[in-house]
């Protein structure tokens, strides 16, 4: 018996976006009826490769075989015809359309909508039963939870009778319970003989569900292995190109008094959803308090409120004096003047003005400081000179203060932000996702800087979705779930499993079955979203 033809075979795929080569001569084989994982650092080119397979981007070079047949896939229509469905990292749904409308869009039968809608309603019903994919067909997508929106995306693909399904980082936005549900669905699909490509950053998921796994690094495919024959350590090494040791050498913390006292912080966002629901904690001078949690559970809002650019109620005192939480005197500049530095989660859309030169960015947020003013004008020459110094101390490459921020690589952009915030010697430093999309060399440098600041007696609030990073840097660890701080543990005593439960919303005291609690939490969330929609 010969092997069946691979469901997908890519050969020599290359793709550039302007100067960036996102994919370099990539080849890949995926056998039918299997789940194939793809891992790689940010920007490694995973999404690009899959988008090419789905006809969203056109490859510069390379060939594609589907089920043994060579195919041209110039657009998504061709991919759909070839039986490929894709769930994008960023969903491609029409927010103010109903589920049904989203499902039939592009796959209507005939010029009139009515028959298509009727047919789709029936098909959705049977798909829902078959794969645990139930979702209200008449609900507008914007009122659905993220997990349900993802189901709509999967339904879209299945409705088009895809038997090759690509999922791009599907669990990044899901709660653990939702993620488990998704994996059950994927299991079912595999059992039906469908082929699945799963992109993820989480080695745990790869080990749990995939049959084979490919690793990408810097636009290249570095390896493809059978999951059963590899280990997370090996995959991590393949991913970054050298042994990973996510451990920082640091002395025990010498915490002093509370620098920042946060009490009962509440924040409601523009669409009326309460994002912070009574957060309280103390942040001591000389310690790193790490905040862990699945993205979207209020960590970003916590940073924004403390950083002064989101309104809140409750109280925050800095070294004994209360900070305004709304209105005049509550903005980023005032917080900086009061001694709170802030390295934002997203350096490109918050921390930097991308077209500004490095020297202009080096005072961003401090540009009204009297030391940079002479009369009405800014002391540009002095700022530039100062920036050159900072860049040298933080090993920014190239050390050219006149280069626009957008022309630095991600890691160097992060260093520019860190230099700006750290060199002001703030009493409190807020740091969000300090190493997101930053390579391993830069990570080590950044971690050293954070520890150095801690040892200098400053208070550091670290928010990160990378548990490893939290463990590596924190002296104490808090977990946020659904706008609440679920509990703070000493880093030395905390264990990963327990934090994982807290991240799913299961408190230690409740003693509940974790699964049930997670589902209850999800129900609660849906109820909230329905009422706020």
């Amino acid at each position, binding site marked *: 018996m010969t092997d069946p033809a691979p469901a997908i075979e890519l050969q020599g795929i290359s793709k550039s*976006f*302007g100067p960036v080569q996102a994919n370099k001569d990539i080849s890949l084989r995926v056998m039918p009826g299997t789940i194939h994982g793809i891992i790689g650092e940010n920007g490694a080119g995973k999404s690009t490769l899959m988008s090419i397979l*789905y*006809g*969203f*981007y056109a490859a510069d070079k390379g060939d594609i075989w589907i089920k043994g047949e060579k195919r041209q896939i110039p*657009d*998504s*229509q*061709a*991919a*759909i015809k070839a039986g490929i469905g*894709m769930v*994008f990292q960023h969903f*491609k*749904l*029409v*927010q*103010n*359309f109903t589920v049904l*409308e*989203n499902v*039939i*869009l*592009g*796959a*209507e039968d*005939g*010029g*009139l*909508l*009515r028959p*298509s809608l009727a047919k789709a309603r029936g098909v959705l019903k049977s798909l829902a039963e078959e794969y645990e994919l139930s979702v209200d067909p008449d609900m507008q997508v914007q009122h659905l939870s993220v997990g349900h929106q993802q189901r709509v995306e999967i339904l*879209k693909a299945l409705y088009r009778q895809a038997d090759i399904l690509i999922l791009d980082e599907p669990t990044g936005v899901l709660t653990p319970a939702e993620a488990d549900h998704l994996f059950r669905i994927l299991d079912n699909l595999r059992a039906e003989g469908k082929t699945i490509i799963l992109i993820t950053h989480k080695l745990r998921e790869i080990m749990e569900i995939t049959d084979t796994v490919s690793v990408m690094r810097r636009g290249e495919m570095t390896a493809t292995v059978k999951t059963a024959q590899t280990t997370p350590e090996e995959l991590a090494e393949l991913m970054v190109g050298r042994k990973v040791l996510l451990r920082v050498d640091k002395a025990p913390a010498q915490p002093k008094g509370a620098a920042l006292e946060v009490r009962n912080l509440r924040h409601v966002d523009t669409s009326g959803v309460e994002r912070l629901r009574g957060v309280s904690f103390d942040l001591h001078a000389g310690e790193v308090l790490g905040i862990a949690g699945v993205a979207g559970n209020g960590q970003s809002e916590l940073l924004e409120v403390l950083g002064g650019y989101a309104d809140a109620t409750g109280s925050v005192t800095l070294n004994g004096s209360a900070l305004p939480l709304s209105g005049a005197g509550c903005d980023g500049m005032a917080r900086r003047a009061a001694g709170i530095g802030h390295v934002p989660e997203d350096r490109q859309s918050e921390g930097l003005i991308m077209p500004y030169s490095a020297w202009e960015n080096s005072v961003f947020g401090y540009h009204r400081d009297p030391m940079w003013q002479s009369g009405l004008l800014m002391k540009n020459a002095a700022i530039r000179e100062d920036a050159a110094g900072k860049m040298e101390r933080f090993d920014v490459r190239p050390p050219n203060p006149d280069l626009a921020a957008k022309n630095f690589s991600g890691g160097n952009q992060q260093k520019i932000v860190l230099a700006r915030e750290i060199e002001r010697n703030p009493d409190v430093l807020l740091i969000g996702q300090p190493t997101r999309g930053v390579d391993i060399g830069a990570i080590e440098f950044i971690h050293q800087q954070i520890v150095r600041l801690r040892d200098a007696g400053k208070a550091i609030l670290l928010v990160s979705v990378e548990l490893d990073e939290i463990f590596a840097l924190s002296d104490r660890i808090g977990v946020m779930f659904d706008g609440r701080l679920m509990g703070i543990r000493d880093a030395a005593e905390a264990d990963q499993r327990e934090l994982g439960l807290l991240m799913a919303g299961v408190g230690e005291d409740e003693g509940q079955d974790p699964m049930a609690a997670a589902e209850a939490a999800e129900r609660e969330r849906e109820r909230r979203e329905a009422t706020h929609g």
Partner: protein
Amino acid sequence: MDYSTLLQVLDSTMRLATPLLLACLAGLFSERAGVIDIGLEGKMLIAAFFSAAIAAATGSVWLGLLAGLVSSTLLSFVHGLASITFRGNQLISGVAINFLAAGLTVLIAQDWFGQGGRTPSLIGSGRWENITLPLAETLRPVPVLGPLYADLISGHSLLVYVGLVMVPVTWWVLFRTRFGLRLRAVGEAPEAVDTAGVSVTGLRYAAVGICGLLCGLAGSYLATGLQAGFVKDMTAGRGYIALAALIFAKWRPWSALGACLLFGLLQAVALRYQNIDLGGITIPVQVMDALPYILTVVILAGFVGKAIPPRAGGEPYVKER
């Protein structure tokens, strides 16, 4: 105001609302597809000119209409080229198109007719005739409803009825057909349309094309229905009022009808009365002239319900940065 005066005012409301309505629906198609169009004015103007010019030259209002449709659609495709193919700034393109039309019409008119930027007056079959609906005269004696039917509903030119019919047609196309679904989707989330395997570019060009055709109707009506010939700048800001009506209507066809009738009524009243005396307070005619614009600002300010435009409006669809 007695009944017959009221009918008179409403009758002229109908006439004045028609070009607004056609242009408003034109804008609706374009903006629902995510292409903002402040060039409605220019397209109407060029259609007005070419339909009058060709009608004057051939004596056929139908050939005039054809010329109006073609010219307006061509200009629409210039906008499409700028905003869809070359991902240019849609607002700037619209401004440019308004200028282009304002200049070209006079330039060509002067070259062809030598009458200082106007066309010769249209006579006979060069203009739309008013259509008398069946039984209009027979029913006239019926109290209240008779004159209403005979004076207000009957007796307009074909394009007025076309304008009215376009409202349900637009609604039906947008909300009951595959094309409409895709068109609305492309204005909200072009990436969703693209990944569903439908061409964003194709849809947007189709919408821009329809926009051109409807503007063509609007311009033709101005020059060969409402008036008998083209004069320089004869659209006189109607394109902008149509845009205002579109916002007022929150991009919905039936509301567009309402908004255009309201603005038509304002114009009709302003045309007929210099100043309006409201028991001691005199409202100057300039206030009536400015009222559509003031109302639009009030609507935009969100004091009377929020106008949420199609999400992808004004943004070129860029896949690869």
